[in-house]
């Protein structure tokens, strides 16, 4: 396989392109590697394809022919049933009410904190970064018990919360997402902001720009790639949250869709075909991330990892 690395270099690749005969020649080791990767990918995608396939078949057909079979009807009946019977539009709306504000506030707060930490040299910067980063790495379950007590004690005006408390309210869920996710975003954004040359803010300062304007009009626009990557990643994480919503939102009809699906199984979803269809519907936003924004998602993850 040692030669394989060399063959991959650009010069030989160009030569190969000009000689089509050579291009098709595959080393046995390479061929074996491709076979292995293809097999792995088939196994990897099988559960998703199986779910999709099952969701397209009526229950009656799978009951008659078995789940691993071909034939019978294929239609979107399960999708229509899941969508209507289980009120999925309502839960999508709940997810949007929680995810969008949480995402925007998290990025906004994190970018401000990152600006303070990365563009200034205060003594407490290091401690602040540690507090943020370590906080994000704690298991949620390690803090839930007192948090839950805290939530049922803190009063909220009734227009913000039906229960009159942080607990069981959209506001409370948004708040914990912001508090928890800000840590990771500060970490990533401060690393990113540190790569912005000091001369730029220095020049703005000389021109009389206040700290706020340096942040809002100079540094933040330069962080757009990092913000886009983080937005994609955080959208997925907040949308995918199951734990906070399960514990902190008791009213079933206010739950976001990821957590709501659990209540609906058994109540509305009686067979695997319906569950498969509902799962596919719930996965749609994250599948959009997968197909359209994969690059941003991955770079968000690796921005965080590379510096660590």
């Amino acid at each position, binding site marked *: 396989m040692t030669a394989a690395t060399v063959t991959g270099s650009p010069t030989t690749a160009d030569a190969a392109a000009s000689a089509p005969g050579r291009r098709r020649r595959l080393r046995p080791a390479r061929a074996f590697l491709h076979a292995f990767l293809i097999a792995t990918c088939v196994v*990897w995608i099988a559960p998703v394809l199986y779910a999709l396939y099952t969701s397209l078949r009526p229950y009656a057909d799978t009951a008659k022919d078995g789940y691993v079979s071909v034939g019978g009807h294929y239609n979107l009946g399960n999708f229509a049933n899941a969508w209507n019977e289980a009120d999925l539009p309502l839960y999508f709306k709940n997810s949007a009410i929680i995810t969008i504000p949480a995402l925007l506030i998290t990025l906004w707060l994190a970018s401000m904190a990152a600006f303070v930490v990365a563009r200034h040299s205060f003594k407490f910067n290091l401690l602040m970064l540690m507090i943020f980063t370590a906080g994000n790495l704690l298991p949620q379950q390690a803090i839930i018990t007192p948090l839950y007590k805290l939530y049922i004690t803190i009063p909220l005006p009734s227009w913000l919360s039906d229960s009159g408390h942080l607990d069981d309210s959209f506001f409370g869920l948004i708040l914990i997402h912001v508090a928890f996710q800000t840590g990771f975003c500060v970490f990533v954004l401060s690393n990113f902001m540190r790569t912005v040359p000091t001369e730029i803010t220095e020049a703005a300062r000389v021109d009389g720009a206040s700290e706020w304007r340096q942040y809002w009009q100079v540094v933040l626009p330069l962080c757009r790639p990092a913000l886009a990557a983080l937005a994609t990643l955080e959208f997925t994480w907040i949308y995918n949250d199951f734990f906070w919503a399960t514990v902190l939102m008791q009213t079933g009809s206010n739950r976001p869709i990821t957590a709501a*699906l*659990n209540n609906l199984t058994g109540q509305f979803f009686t067979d695997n075909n319906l569950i498969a269809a509902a799962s596919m519907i719930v996965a749609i936003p994250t599948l959009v991330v*997968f197909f359209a924004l994969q690059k941003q998602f991955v770079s968000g993850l690796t921005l965080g990892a590379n510096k660590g």
Partner: protein
Amino acid sequence: MAATTLSQPAARPRTRRRLKRYTKLDRAALTLMGGVPLLLSLAFVWLPALATVALSFFNWTGIGGFSDMKAAGLENYRIIFTIYPEFPPAIEHNLLWLVVFFVIPAPFGLFLAHQLNKRLRGSRIYQSILFLPVVLSLALVGFMTELVFSPTQGLVNNLTGHAGQNNLIDWLGDPSLNIWAVLIMACWRQTGYVMILFLAGLKSVDPSLQEAASLDGANEWQSFRHVVWPALRPINIVVVVVTVIESLRAFDIVYIINQGTNGLELLSTLITANIIGETSRIGFGSALATILLVISLVFVLPYVYTTFRKDTRS
């Protein structure tokens, strides 16, 4: 402590001059910009973390307000370690989760990343497919687990001919089997995650080093062992932390299947059961949470400390 890229001697006088130039408004702005996010993190993450430890020494149903709290000393811990029947299996399953994550997704993710990092045709397609489960929520992975391992309707039993009544394998109901079904699906998602992290790390390894090694006659294993592996050190630390944290956080998949009972007990599900169950036992749940907290801090604090210390030196 200067976190800017300026070198130390130059930074000193400049910083001092700069500090003087902050107007009152600037100072107020900076305080708010840093203070508000910090306060949120302290109030809703760190305060509960500390309170978890404090509450673990009390008995409290949580209903009658603070006056109802009774000091319990180490009683909660004594119960957990001696007579609480769910605790040994929970710890066992968390450990098993951790070991499996270290033994399967971590090396396999590295292996896949290393292979995909070669200039391979179709590499992007392979990458995308292996990465797909990472965007799905763990709750959804729980539903996928039901689809794949459901005894009569599942993929595995139907493929292997075990879906009939006479030779049914009850993957999700049998307490000695279900943890493995769950772990298979957890690994399915974790491998792609680890692979992406390693791929990013491998991109920063200078390919000419590997070429030089192979020109010197190193075989693939030798060049990996002596050129690639040492360069991956920083990413290895990240993967270790991610692996530990993800296995301590494990919750969603088992909660979807049976709320973490009957062979699927985890520390996280025990904690949850103790606060949202019918008998809310705040002190007892906190003692369980403290155990989880301590285990995770053992990994998190050294990681954060070394990361940022290294940061200031550069």
